[in-house]
């Protein structure tokens, strides 16, 4: 209520955050695929230790924004810096080093289907650490337990359910104890109960580790539950950035429309939850 949120291109920084260094900083990012503009001058700061939820409808450009922060797409216009490294000009070696401090959980889980779940989780450790193989096996079991999976090391990803695969891919993303964790649509394609379980898991990670989490989603319920700050994106432009309360009270009609449209849906439980949260 106290402060209004940022307009489309200019980023609004709240006073108590101004002194903090952003771990991810996006400035005037423009992305075009042929004639279509996907991101149109996006600026966003994400600070160390916070959980930032990027909220938007399908085709709003939120996944594209995430892929730029992950370094999977190089910015052609504008600037993306992660931990002070400019991703547009970073060499392959620098990018590789930077990626070791990032974990990514993909929308489709993206487990390697030719390997067992245990080998999937072990892969980053085998490639990037000098730990003994027996130690790695123990660590794999611990990481899988952290996400609530036991006795799945020897199964193949195709033998797991959608929710379990998502959890396993999260365990893989956590394998190298990342500083930044990216989540693309954690609840996509999952039933509400399992999706809620994943939200709990993210909340647990937040409380247990000093980790920066970036989540992209279109699920309002989940967004309001897990976010420290939120960023609402529509047609390639940022509509609003702020805390959960600020977003809820944002006067922008499009923000309100998005919030209300979700709340208008039959699920009374979720809408009353948002109001009461």
């Amino acid at each position, binding site marked *: 209520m106290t402060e209004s949120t940022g307009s489309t291109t200019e980023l609004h920084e709240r006073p108590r955050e101004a002194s903090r260094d952003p771990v991810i900083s996006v400035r005037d990012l423009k992305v075009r695929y042929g004639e279509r503009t996907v991101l149109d001058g996006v600026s966003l700061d994400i600070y160390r230790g916070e959980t930032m939820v990027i909220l938007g409808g399908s085709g709003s450009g939120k996944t594209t924004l995430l892929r730029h922060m*992950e370094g*999977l797409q190089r910015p052609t216009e504008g600037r993306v810096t992660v931990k002070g490294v400019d991703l547009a000009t970073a060499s392959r070696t620098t990018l590789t080093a930077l990626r070791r401090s990032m974990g*990514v959980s993909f929308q489709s889980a*993206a*487990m*390697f289907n030719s390997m067992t779940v245990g080998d999937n989780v072990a892969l*980053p450790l085998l*490639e990037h650490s000098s730990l003994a*193989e027996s130690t790695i096996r123990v660590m794999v079991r611990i990481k899988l337990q952290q996400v609530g999976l036991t006795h799945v090391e020897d199964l193949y990803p195709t033998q797991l359910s959608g929710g379990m695969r998502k959890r396993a891919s999260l365990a893989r993303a956590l394998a190298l104890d990342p500083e930044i964790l990216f989540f693309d649509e954690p609840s996509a394609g999952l039933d509400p109960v399992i999706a809620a379980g994943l939200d709990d898991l993210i909340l647990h990670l937040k409380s247990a580790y000093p980790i920066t989490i970036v989540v992209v989603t279109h699920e309002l319920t989940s967004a309001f539950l897990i976010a420290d700050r939120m960023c609402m994106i529509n047609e390639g432009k940022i509509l609003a950035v702020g805390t959960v309360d600020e977003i809820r009270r944002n006067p922008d009609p499009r923000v309100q429309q998005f919030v209300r449209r979700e709340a208008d849906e039959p699920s009374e439980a979720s809408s009353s939850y948002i109001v009461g949260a």
Partner: protein
Amino acid sequence: MMLLESVGRFSLRQAEYIGRLAIQFWYGLRFSVRASPFKGRGLRWQRTLRQMGDIGVRSLPVLCLVAGATGMIMALQAGAELRRFGAMEAIVTMVGTTMTRELGPLMAAIVVIGRSGSAISAEVATMAVTEELDALRAMALDPIDFVLVPKYLAMLVMLPCLTVMSVFSGILAGGVFAYFALDLTLLAYLSRTAEILLMRDIVSGLVKAVIFGSIIVHVSCLEGFTVSGGPVGVGHSTTNAVVKSIFLVVLADLLCTTFFYFFWR
């Protein structure tokens, strides 16, 4: 104007394709050095060995049949003509040199394109579609290092080996013909073939095998890496990989043969 435009666009696309292939080839070579069995945990070496089984060992039966049939066909066709001149003996030379220099490596390459080239591009394209390649990049693993290099190294070892087997099957099939048509025992046939073959025949065949192997892996992987359009794209990329590989292998064969014709007689 329309014609000029489309010619220009076509040329640009081809130039881009060759550029991509060249960059991928360069990184492939750079990462290949890291696949040494004595470095790290030898994980890359293990993957390479598994690929060798896939590319090499399992192609062997069908390759022997194809190469054997080719050798036999050549002996039959040549025999039909040479008989009129009473020069049947020349069959030994013909089958021996043509198989070693030309048809051995070519048949091996074609069988491997059909079996492994299509499989490689389908595998890589599926990995691209299901975000597995992105997952590798996000894990600070380069897909060229992790996916392409084991296949490339396996191919560099296995295609020359397959070529040797292909040449041998072709020559052996020619020997069967010689046994019936010329009353030449197999041992006599083989020893005569050994007398005829020069080092340059054998080396040129093996050099071709190495070049063909590079083409097959890099073209198939590139088709996979650059897939677009979801599962339908996987099918397209597989078709493209096979067609482009065959075309480029035959083209490379022509260039190699020309080179050897002029520069190493």
